[in-house]
């Protein structure tokens, strides 16, 4: 069964009023405008359309916002430690070791001129005092854990020699080898076929239920989030429209309680069970961003 956040324990992540601003020559672009949430040992989904600020939220937590972006927050705590008060060196120590991120596309996120095994071993050795042999053994075990059948063969392959699904598993292995408490997965499966997608989700799911990891699952796919996550944050224009239990996304009887944006997103999906002549389109209300 799912083990949800233990109430007595401090949340893994506690964020209040997170803002990400980009200072551009033509003015300030607010990518994230006052986002607050806590993350326990659970699967938290963040959904929204492109430009809603969902990826920026993940990057802000890791201190990976590029120039000229500026991150501000009233509170950003990782297991009680104040992330805002840390310098970039301390943040770097957390990154990868305690909080990791799986990017969307393995093709662009792996180093093309190193074998995948070496990259996984490197991720391990950065955070642990270990020799090459131990790192190699750990990496092989990790590859096996993400369901790669011949780890010893795959270890010596270059990124262009592995398929998309395998590349994504390599990325996940690399992110998990340091055993982080929080994994941020930014559209980890949207470049993959449905059947491979389900295998990857199974791996992530096991990590949450068996190791008690906290997972932030960023996605634009409402069906997937609804079937996979415990809770869901719906974002639009950098703001949270609503936070709800994932099961309620599909619940027809709970529709009246839903935010109009969430409903709009759900309605405009084609549905095999509800054939319609014309799909409803989304009417955006400027008041949502007020």
């Amino acid at each position, binding site marked *: 069964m799912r083990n949800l956040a233990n109430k007595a324990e401090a949340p893994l992540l506690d964020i209040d009023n997170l803002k990400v601003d980009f200072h551009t020559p033509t003015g300030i672009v607010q990518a994230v405008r006052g986002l607050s949430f806590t993350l326990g040992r659970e699967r938290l989904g963040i959904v929204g*359309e*492109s430009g809603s600020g969902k990826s920026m939220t993940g990057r802000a937590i890791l201190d990976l916002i590029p120039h000229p972006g500026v991150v501000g927050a009233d509170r950003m705590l990782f297991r009680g430690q104040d992330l805002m008060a840390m310098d970039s060196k301390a943040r770097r120590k957390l990154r990868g070791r305690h909080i990791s991120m799986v990017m969307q596309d393995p093709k662009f996120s792996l180093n093309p001129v190193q074998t995948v095994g070496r990259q996984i071993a490197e991720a391990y050795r950065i955070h642990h005092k270990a020799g090459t042999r131990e790192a190699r053994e750990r990496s092989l075990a990790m590859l096996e854990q993400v369901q790669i059948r011949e780890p010893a063969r795959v270890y010596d392959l270059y990124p262009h020699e592995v398929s998309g699904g395998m590349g994504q598993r390599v990325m996940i292995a690399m992110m998990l080898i340091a055993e982080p408490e929080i994994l941020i997965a930014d559209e980890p499966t949207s470049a993959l*076929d449905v*059947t491979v997608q389900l295998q990857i989700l199974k791996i992530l799911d096991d990590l949450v239920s068996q190791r008690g990891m906290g997972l932030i699952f960023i996605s634009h796919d409402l069906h997937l989030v609804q*079937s996979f996550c415990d809770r869901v944050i719906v974002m639009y224009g950098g703001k949270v429209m609503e936070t709800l239990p994932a099961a309620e996304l599909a619940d027809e009887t709970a529709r009246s309680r839903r935010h109009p944006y969430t409903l709009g997103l759900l309605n405009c999906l084609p549905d095999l069970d509800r054939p319609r002549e014309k799909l409803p389109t989304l009417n955006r209300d400027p008041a949502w961003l007020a």
Partner: protein
Amino acid sequence: MTNAAISVEKLNVSFGDSHVVKDLSFTVGQGESYGLVGESGSGKSTVLRVLSGLNRDWSGAVAIEGAVQPKTRAKAFYRNVQMVFQDPYGSLHPKKTIDDTLAEPLAIHGIRDAEARIGKALSDVGLPASFRFRYPHQLSGGQRQRVAIARALVLEPSILLLDEPTSALDVSIQAEVLNLLSALRHERKLTYILVSHDLAVVGHMCERLLVMQFGRAVEEMAVGTLASRAPQTAYAQQLLTASEGFKREG
């Protein structure tokens, strides 16, 4: 069949040693919307590229509206059959205005009233006339895909080949583009072949579909079969189950 818009018989395509489409046969009726479904590497996009004349290395027989097609197509063919590609960010020339993009097919086919046709194509896809002299980077993804559709429609074809036309778009924009494609089909009696990995999109847009795997046809079915979850083959069933989201065991 005489009334078939597209008929494909024993189509085979190989790239070097890999045989990517194997003995594929199907027919699409006049005015029908037909879906090609499968995972990456199933050969569905290759089939479209053969139909559109982009891939000239194939064997088998392809007939469009009853006329058997040679490997190198006649100019008139391209007036009748047009394609819309997956990625609206990659399929429009970044240094050409929308006007240039829409004028080029007209110039190639020596059509005179370009001015009026471009204006009409833009209004048909619901873009304001003021967009005509913009560049692709000044448009959103959904607007770009509308331009790509306008480019295909400006020659008034009767067959549109759609290669994942909405997979790069947000769901709300996807709904707009799908509505536009449906409306255009009904207005102009167009025939569509829609390639997609999204069964719900195919279910919404098509009357029949073909499930492909490793370059072979696995199962052809009516959309009703999909909606009633009754495919015959295990693979089609598996795709359908996988598309319904994640399931925890126990």
